[in-house]
């Protein structure tokens, strides 16, 4: 019973943290820094769950995260969910091939996932939408992943603290081929 409570607590902490920083990104960043591209603060949360959780837990988080974050954007839920599932698959596949312990892999994957998100958004828009995205914001595409990586560095330690508090065990790490 206690273990279940801690597990639910772990899920809720992460969702609460996600809500906090999604609101920060859409509101505070905009009001303080104006049109400067914002880091995608929801992606480090997503990537953490893709790397340091069992696959079924990652899928649960993918759906929950998409439901929460889609309330802050006009992107349709279906396309957003499709993109996020693709990102989860990409992160999982990369983790199977190239993985090393420590924060480096996590930070790199956060930045890469941000870029993958933008690319997939463009592709899905061209394929599925009547009025597709034809002129992406290239400056945001360049700056946003870098800022996301910076925040991922900070979030990495915070997320492991959450796991320690809720006694959540990280799955046995798989070591890939490396470089």
């Amino acid at each position, binding site marked *: 019973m206690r273990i279940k409570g801690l597990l639910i607590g772990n899920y809720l902490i992460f969702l609460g943290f996600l809500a906090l920083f999604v609101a920060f990104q*859409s509101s505070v960043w905009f009001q303080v820094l104006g049109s400067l591209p914002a880091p995608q603060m929801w992606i480090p949360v997503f990537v953490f769950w893709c790397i340091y959780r069992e696959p079924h837990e990652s899928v649960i988080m993918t759906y929950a995260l998409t439901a929460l974050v889609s*309330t802050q954007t*006009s992107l349709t839920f279906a396309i957003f969910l499709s993109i996020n599932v693709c990102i989860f698959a990409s992160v999982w596949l990369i983790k199977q091939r190239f993985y090393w312990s420590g924060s480096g892999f996590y930070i790199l994957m956060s930045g890469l996932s941000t870029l993958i998100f933008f690319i997939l958004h463009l592709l899905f828009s061209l394929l599925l*939408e009547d009025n597709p*995205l034809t002129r*992406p914001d290239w400056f945001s595409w360049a700056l946003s992943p870098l800022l996301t990586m910076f925040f991922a560095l900070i979030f990495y330690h915070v997320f492991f603290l959450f796991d320690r508090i809720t006694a959540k065990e990280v799955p046995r790490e798989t070591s890939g081929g490396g470089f």
Partner: protein
Amino acid sequence: MSFFSLDLRKAVVLIAVVAIPLLTVNEPRNPEESHWALKPFAFALGSLQSLYSGFSSGVRGTTSLYLDLIDIKLVNQQLLKENAELRAQLGTLTELKLENERLNSLLGFKQKSQMELLAAKVVGEDLLPDQKTLIINRGSRHGVKSHMAAITVGGVVGYVFRTSPYTSQILLLTDRYAVIDSIVQRSRARGLVEGSDKDLCKLRYLKRGDDVRVGDLVVTSGLDNIFPKGFPVANVKNVLKSQYGLSQEVELKPVVSPQTLEEVFIVLNANQENFEQPEETLELDPVDHHQKQIKEAPTESLLMPPSGVES
């Protein structure tokens, strides 16, 4: 030696010592001119005095300069500090002044319009960089519903597409998902304004033969009663006609720059408001109170130049 044997040399000296003062006393006095015998002495001493005077004035000057410099430095630091404080105050006051002008303009617009308007403050933007939405601090508890128009003093901003109890999201007209029914004010050609990218939108579904020129103003058609009729949307920036085809593509630049928006109005009820020119005014109906009002130069009276509006 006897009393009468005198030393001649001593006698001469004695006589000279006694006689010279007595002689000078009897000489005519001329205070303006010193005695010739004293002139060398006066010259030497005068030169020495000039030298001393120059030296002492130099010392005094250097000392006072040093002391003044210390004072000047202190005063300068104080003045710099005061200057910085005054600049900060000036910045704050300038910001307040601009905000006051902007709010006065909005208030004036709201008071003169017959639409039911709800003022809202922009508090956020879309999470993704390629989607163009704004978040405002008014929601369903304030009467906001989906598909209500969002405007500002100078023109159309977009429309509400999602509400929550305390906030709402506005789809900007530059967003790819936004569609607004519009007409070209000059030629009355009708089409749909769709968002294109960050700064531009397009007027689509115009017939090939429709008269559209660069610089034309595109206004709302008012047919949906979401937007008031004749409200500025965008200016024509480019007209693209392919060699073959039934339609033409028109590139538009919105009259309102969304990046500079701080407040917007939500149109709770358009009340058949019409911003067209006086010749477009409806036939007088003595029963209908609104139609009786003939607005003289409605565009100039209601559309005051705010900040962030591009002509």
